[in-house]
């Protein structure tokens, strides 16, 4: 009489988690920075001066005439999009069980994120507050004063 002993379960596959670790750190660091950036942005746009009524093309043009706000908005764009996409990626990993669904969703997420960052950065870096041939009343005051 012999007893068959089940073969031991295969050990848990070891997968390096360098990315997971840095992802976790990034979420915390960018989260803290975004708190300052977003609330700074909201206060500057909605509270200071005339508040929400002041927002128009001229307002944005005026803001982006200084490198300070371009850098501010640029950092906010990059941090927020990567933060949001990474958050969505963890949700996908939590709920998408089939490997191909998971893979295609994650690839789509990062592709969308990449396109948005590219377009946003393009706008911020190449923005011209005084485009030629526009109605003068739509432009910030410093365009016509020149």
């Amino acid at each position, binding site marked *: 009489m012999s007893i068959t002993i089940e073969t031991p379960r295969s050990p848990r596959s070891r*997968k390096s988690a360098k990315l*997971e*670790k840095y992802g*976790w750190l990034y979420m915390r660091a960018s989260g803290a920075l975004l708190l300052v950036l977003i609330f700074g942005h909201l206060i500057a746009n909605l509270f200071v001066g005339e508040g929400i009524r002041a927002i128009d093309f001229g307002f944005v043009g005026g803001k982006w005439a200084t490198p300070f706000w371009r850098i501010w908005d640029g950092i906010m764009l990059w941090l927020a999009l990567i933060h949001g996409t990474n958050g969505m990626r963890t949700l996908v990993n*939590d709920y998408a069980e089939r490997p191909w669904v998971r893979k295609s969703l994650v690839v789509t997420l990062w592709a969308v994120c990449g396109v948005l960052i590219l377009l946003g950065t393009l706008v911020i870096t190449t923005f011209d507050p005084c485009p030629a041939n526009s109605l003068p009343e739509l432009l910030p005051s410093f365009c016509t004063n020149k």
Partner: protein
Amino acid sequence: MATAVAKPVIPEIPTFNVTLFVRRFDPETGEEAKWQDFDVQVHGTDRVLDALHKIKWEIDGSLTFRRSCAHGVCGSDAMRINGRNRLACKTLIKDLDINAPIYVEPIKGLAVEKDLIVDMNPFYQAYRDIKPFLIASDKPEKERLQSAEDRARFDDTTKCILCAACTTSCPVFWTDGQYFGPAAIVNAHRFIFDSRDEAASTRIEILNDKEGVWRCRTTFNCTEACPRGIQVTKAIAEVKQAILRGKP
């Protein structure tokens, strides 16, 4: 001369009727699991486990569940009672809403074998994977001394009874059976922060895995579920910090 001793007045224990809805699954028929209701009369001092015993012993002997010590120490009878993971032997029926039916189902995320019994092997495997034993280089010839402060560092995580209430309350574990789960991390914490143990870095390396501590979403389900009151989420956070530091 005999003095009259006043008999202590023991108030009568109230009895009441409750309805239990138990999630039943029979592997022999292979039919989908379904709810079955039982009406039982219980005492005010009874626990959910007593009601289950009453059903098994007096109404339907085929009802299957695990229990060993029946006093909250062995961790055999973790089950989902009214949607929360608890030990049936530590949950007094009077503390639940007795005007509504009590729902009892197996813990989630592990394969159901029969009625309230689940396959605990994946859970134990995660526990084994974190090497839950003292690893020390010197020979065990004399007592390994430790200060009270050093002992207090991991006191909370020594309380674990491996009932799986935390791990099976974790939404990440429900969808990803490969995740180590709170219980394994708690037991790793118990050794990582033990001053007598020398393999903290090994365990840190094991838990710095794709399926390790970084999967934790700090939802606190585990802390709420733990029948021993272990601050599970805090322990996981401490292991995360130990990984970032590279040492306990």
